[in-house]
């Protein structure tokens, strides 16, 4: 029983990192219906910026904040240069998706250059001292507490922003109906840019936390977590922030528990099999709303 609980806590640690990433995916998708494949690589940039901060002796909260700011700027630049021109042309959605894949490839390959981060794996320094607590027979590490607390904090702030501020209201309006929002005087481009900034900042935090928990960083590190987080967002019902959280936590549990009790070889397969099964029963995800079918 104690061992099971321990695995559940491990699953929570992974799931909460996925949640931070998934929220960014789901926000962007909710607003412009784009699977932003470059999101996974923003995680990588976030992890690297944090890394450079830490090795220069900057305290970790500052390093993570700096990474969040840097990635927010990066997100806005990506949106401005790659996605907005397509939106203004009224290009089909698939063109934006291919561009997103292009941006993703660009970030990975550029980061691999020797003038940038370089292709090698690097050891991530210790973010906070490693402490273990025994709570009712369950070992909890300081990293796990850090991840769970900061994710809850960030998602709570995000909920406040989305539901209690003017820009949050504008975001919801754009997500509901972009044209109507524009007619109501909302600056749609600004709202979209803000969404990318927030999503990318969360991705940066996720990157730093991921690197703190699994201390290896390299230019392609964002691909798999990004994919799984996106899957989690779809699982929970894309476009919904609580859905993203639920999906991510489920995804983390599925992965860790499969690895612990069934087989490590098939852990990736199990997570995706779960996704396909859920989609077959609920085609819009667990908390997603299936829109009315219109001709």
């Amino acid at each position, binding site marked *: 029983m104690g061992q099971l609980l321990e695995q559940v806590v491990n699953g929570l640690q992974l799931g909460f990192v996925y949640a931070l990433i998934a929220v960014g995916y789901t926000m962007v998708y909710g607003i412009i219906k784009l699977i932003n494949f470059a999101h996974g690589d923003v995680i990588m940039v976030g992890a690297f910026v944090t890394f450079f901060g830490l090795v220069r002796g900057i305290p970790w909260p500052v390093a993570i904040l700096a990474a969040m700011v840097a990635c927010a700027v990066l997100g806005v630049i990506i949106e401005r240069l790659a996605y907005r021109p397509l939106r203004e042309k009224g*290009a089909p959605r698939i063109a934006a998706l291919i561009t997103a894949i292009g941006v993703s490839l660009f970030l990975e390959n550029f980061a691999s*250059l020797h003038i940038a981060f370089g292709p090698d794996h690097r050891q991530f320094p210790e973010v906070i001292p490693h402490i273990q607590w025994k709570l009712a027979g369950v070992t909890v590490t300081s990293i796990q507490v850090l991840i769970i607390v900061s994710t809850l904090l960030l998602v709570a702030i995000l909920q406040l922003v989305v539901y209690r501020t003017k820009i949050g209201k504008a975001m919801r309006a754009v997500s509901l109906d972009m044209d109507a929002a524009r007619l109501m005087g909302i600056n749609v481009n600004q709202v979209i840019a803000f969404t990318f900034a927030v999503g990318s900042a969360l991705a940066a935090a996720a990157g730093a936390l991921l690197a703190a928990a699994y201390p290896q960083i390299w230019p392609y590190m964002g691909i798999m977590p990004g994919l799984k987080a996106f899957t989690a967002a779809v699982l929970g019902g894309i476009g919904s922030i609580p859905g993203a959280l639920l999906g991510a936590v489920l995804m983390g549990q599925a992965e860790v528990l499969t690895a612990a009790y069934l087989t490590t070889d098939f852990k990736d397969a199990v997570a995706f*099999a779960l996704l396909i099964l859920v989609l077959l029963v609920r085609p819009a995800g667990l908390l997603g709303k299936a829109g009315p079918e219109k001709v």
Partner: protein
Amino acid sequence: MEPVEKKYTVTVPEKKFTVTIPRNAVISALVIVGLYVVLSLLRQQGVITPYWGLIMDLALITTISATGLSLIYGFAGQFSLGHAAFYGIGAYVAAFITKTYGATTVNFALGLAAGALAAAVIGFLVGLPILRLRSDYLGIATLGFGVIVKVLLDNSDKLSKTLGGSMGMLGIPRLTTFAWVFWLAVAVLLIARNLVNSSHGRVCITVREDEIAADIMGIDTTRYKMLAFTLGCGMAGLGGGLYAHLYTFLHPSSFEFLKSFDVLLIVVLGGLGSLTGTVVAGIGVVFLQEALRGVLGQQFLEWRGVVYALALIVLMILRPQGLMGGWEFSIDRLLQRRPKGGSARGAA
């Protein structure tokens, strides 16, 4: 009462059936054969070096696989992000057959057929439940399937040592020649073209344009989605079989989901709903990647991915509808445009 027996005598007017072969078909065939002869002569004489010959083969194989996705996504509108998985299934099945039963031409042909068939059957079985999903949900489900196949391939050595698992499959006989690749590519394109121009193909396009409306019109949308998906997956399997016997080495990482993106971007870059676009983009992308190697030189080799990604982004922003839009190359049209017109319409 006696049954009244009536006798009818039917006289069939004697009629001679003459088979007329459209003149343009003859010209098309001549052009294709001519192209083949010229290319194989160039390769024999060494004008096209073995290295570039290999690239050419790879480009054609990529085109075969991309044509499959072009049918699935470009024409039937079913967003699939798992194409590389079917490519991989075809590759592994075909390679398994030639490796186990000997490297003869017959076995190669059987292996290719089995690979294509396996990919098609698995495509059918997977498509049956999955194709009920729409757009991005379908995409992510097929992507999930792709990840699952990759994991299974990684562990395939538990099924048979020949498959090699995560160590990769070594020592596949090199049986793929230019002739195989070229003529199979021609065959695949012919099948695709004839399907697209048939009533079935038109129905597929209807499903792409508006699935709900097609449904209301009484079209069995599932059937046509399945048709395009199964056939497209089979083409991917065929391409995979050729690939396996070209490089003689298979590794699961060659068939991961990122490779599905490569095929997707060929189809989109070429222009959705244009086979010409798929061919141009398929050959173009493969050659671009190799040409960049030469242009950048050893010193800047690491910039290759960066330049490629930038080219992709810029192309997509400049031509969001793809290189060809929905335009098709057609010898018929080419001949009709001739000012001497009259006889150019052909005997048909």
